[in-house]
């Protein structure tokens, strides 16, 4: 049992994977029921409040939710609003019960054998198959014409992990495929406390330029920015031991043909932010004052609030730096031109030569400034942006925990009410109906007792998962930042070394004047 569950129970799209003969569940009896999500009893959907409440979360809402959005989000928000509000609610509405992780709890008695504990086992398994996978996104290629055109990216995976069918393989994917992947992962894992890395931002403006075939520097920059973001997104996703083994992820990386993701409005980080904000509102409206028995959660939540503020400040600071660096590049180029003109006008031969050399040096320095600006951007600015977006996912799981607690409390309250009603029944004076009523209430009470137990278990599980996830997040954070600063310093050292070369070459020219 320990090693059989490798994937969480499927949602509809994974249907065919089941047929590969992978053993998903400890109880063979469970399997057939798993594969027909549609046949899951209605009650199953209601047992997890993510069902109905989820609808609430994804309602189109004219209210401006972008007030707190990240800069990136608000940049695109008007367009995003348009996208998000048309069409049906996003992929998460339970055609495939979103809590597919929880649903296959057929026979509530078996829940502890479940994937929750199995996830724990999966993580312990990590030690066995060492993490060795490298994904690169490359070769952006425009496919099609006009407004139906899109960019196809090559996603190449190199790995020695046994999880994969090959060691070195690649597939072609488009942006909506990435969004589709994220949407599936989010719907499966977010509400049970896993920090699912957010997908890169949509950008109508950027893509339109590409579609109309504008081959200029800004659209090239856009494509490069997106390519880099997609690569980071995938690497971050596969670094997560659970997500790595998800069949959707494997399919995304390996399968040459991927069914077109239709509802990609879901869960870009803007969508996530909306969800979080709405959840927060919904929670407040229900006046949840969660009795936080665990100070750890309170402290962590505060910590992440602070971190969010700090990261946004840092991000703004770096953006300013990138801007000035680009300005310096422009100014340097202009100075180089003016120095060249000066050299040309100069009569004195040696001085003229030196000035022309000066112009060349400045041109080279301009190139260094441009490279440095890219470094500033791709290393720091994007790192900070990624973490700001990642924090929305982190906040999301904390919100989910509160909702889970609420659900548990709700069940408990309902149970209480039913018990009171049962007690009152004793005093009713309609004997013929009494037994029927008694039986009904007994049934309801039994059901509710089950729900309460389940609610408590869910709450404990999500709390446990979050603790682990936060720990993983904090370790990753240190690793990521360290890696970036090392790369950055390497570029800084290289720049100075180049400068030294240029100055050493120029000095004799300057001395040779007169």
């Amino acid at each position: 049992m320990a090693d059989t569950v490798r994937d969480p129970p499927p949602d509809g799209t994974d249907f065919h994977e089941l047929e590969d003969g992978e053993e998903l569940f400890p109880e063979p009896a469970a399997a057939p029921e798993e594969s027909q999500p549609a046949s899951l009893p209605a009650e199953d959907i209601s047992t997890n409040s993510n069902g109905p409440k989820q609808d609430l979360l994804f309602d189109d809402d004219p209210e401006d939710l972008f007030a707190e959005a990240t800069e990136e989000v608000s940049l695109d928000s008007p367009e995003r609003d348009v996208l998000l509000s048309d069409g049906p609610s996003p992929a998460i509405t339970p055609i495939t019960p979103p809590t597919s992780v929880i649903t296959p709890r057929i026979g509530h008695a078996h829940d502890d054998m479940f994937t929750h504990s199995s996830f724990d086992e999966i993580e312990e398994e990590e030690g066995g198959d060492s993490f060795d996978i490298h994904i690169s996104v490359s070769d952006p290629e425009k496919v099609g014409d006009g407004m139906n055109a899109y960019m196809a990216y090559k996603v190449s995976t190199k790995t020695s992990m046994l999880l994969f069918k090959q060691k070195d393989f690649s597939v072609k994917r488009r942006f909506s495929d990435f969004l589709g992947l994220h949407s599936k992962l989010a719907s499966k894992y977010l509400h049970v406390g896993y920090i699912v890395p957010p997908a890169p931002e949509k950008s109508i403006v950027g893509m339109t330029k590409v579609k109309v075939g504008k081959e200029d520097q800004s659209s090239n920059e856009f494509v490069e920015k997106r390519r880099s973001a997609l690569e980071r997104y995938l690497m971050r996703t596969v670094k997560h031991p659970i997500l790595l083994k998800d069949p959707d992820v494997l399919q995304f990386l390996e399968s040459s043909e991927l069914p077109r993701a239709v509802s990609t409005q879901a869960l870009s980080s803007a969508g996530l932010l909306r969800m979080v904000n709405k959840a927060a509102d919904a929670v407040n409206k229900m006046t949840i004052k969660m009795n936080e028995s665990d100070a750890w959660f309170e402290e962590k939540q505060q910590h992440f609030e602070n971190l969010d503020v700090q990261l946004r400040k840092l991000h703004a600071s770096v953006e300013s730096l990138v801007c000035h660096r680009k300005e310096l590049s422009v100014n340097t180029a202009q100075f180089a031109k003016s120095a060249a003109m000066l050299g040309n006008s100069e009569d004195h031969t040696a001085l003229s030569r030196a000035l022309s050399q000066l112009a060349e040096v400045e041109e080279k320095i301009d190139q260094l400034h441009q490279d440095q600006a890219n470094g500033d951007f791709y290393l720091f600015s994007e790192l900070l942006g990624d973490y700001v977006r990642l924090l929305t996912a982190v906040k999301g799981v904390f919100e989910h925990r509160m909702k889970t607690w609420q659900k548990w409390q709700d069940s408990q309250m309902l149970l209480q009410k039913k018990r009171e009603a049962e007690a009152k029944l004793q005093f009713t004076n309609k004997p013929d109906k009494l037994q029927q009523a008694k039986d009904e209430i007994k049934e309801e009470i039994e059901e509710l007792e089950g729900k309460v137990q389940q609610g408590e278990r869910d709450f404990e599980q999500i709390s446990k998962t979050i603790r682990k996830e936060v720990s993983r997040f904090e370790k990753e954070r240190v690793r990521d930042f360290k890696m970036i600063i090392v790369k950055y310093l390497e570029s800084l050292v290289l720049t100075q070394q180049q400068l030294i070369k240029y100055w050493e070459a120029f000095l004799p020219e300057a001395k040779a004047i007169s």
Partner: protein
Amino acid sequence: MMEEVKEVTSALSVHGHNIKITDVVKDGDVLTFVIVSQKLSGTGEYHVDRTWDDFEWLQQHLFSQEDVPGIQGVIFPPLPAKANGNTSAKVIKQLGVLGLGEWQPYVKALETFLQLVATHKILNKNKAVEVFLTSSDAPGRQKVKKNIFNRLSQAVEEMRKEGHKDVDEFFQTERDHNLVLTGCTKTAAEKFLDMVLTEQKIAVACGHFSAALHLCVEPGEDPDKKAFSRLCVQISEVFNSMKKNMTSVAENNVNTLGLGLDQESRYQEAEKEMLFRRTCKLVELENATRNAEKAKPVKKEAMEELKTATKTEFQEICRVAKQEIKQFQGVRVKMLQQALVQWCERQLLTAKESADQFNQHLQAFREMTQ
């Protein structure tokens, strides 16, 4: 009270080439400079306090030497503009690159002015120079009478003369060449200033980032938290080093090539002024010649005399101008060379220091366990 001239051959009792401004004090809007010059006799130094208005007094005296033959052919060492803005932005607008670097380049420019004046064979004979450098009292602050060198007073019609065709190929070439060079140099100096201002902005941005990182430091025993806090502090130090590097690069730029380009630009303008004066005299001469030819017998003699006088003046100007141009070309090339060499040397040094610093940071990060 004007001091008596000690020697007959030169009015100046101090060395000209090593005049130094050793200190500058700002009191409200007024900058006071301490000027030190070495006595020719080798027995000591003169220390005097002067403000920009005193410099202007000196310059005006030099301009108004109408009795010195060919004075209009002199390329007058350029005096940098007055600095009286109350914000640094205003000062930069007035002075360009000289408004940066905590008055260091401005002081150097004033020093250069004094050195050029005091070593100028015609100009240093003027008593005003001696008074300026040696008198313990500040020279009189009364406004000197207007003189022909106040461009501002030149009527717009006079500007037409600038393009007047020359009779001498040497001067025509020099005028054409100067026109191009003044334009190019001015542009180069402006672009250089833009570069420096942006470098300063980057330094400031790095400083902000460095400070903002410190806000990410949180207390606590949690090992991951501590690791992240430590990382933030170290990254903060890296950005601090970047700030220092950029500040240094900007300073080097300002104090060497920035100053050099500014100096060159103003000196080219000074040559332009001289060439213009000569051209004006040429026009005057051509008019006088025409008048003399056309003059009715009654006025003829007077016209002829005027023509002769003007011709003499013009020839004197040409003579002096030719000397001045030769001298000027030598001096300006030397100044530019010095600026370029210094610039290169200092930037090279800064690059080496920064490379070391960044390398140290890099090693520290690589060695970080975890």
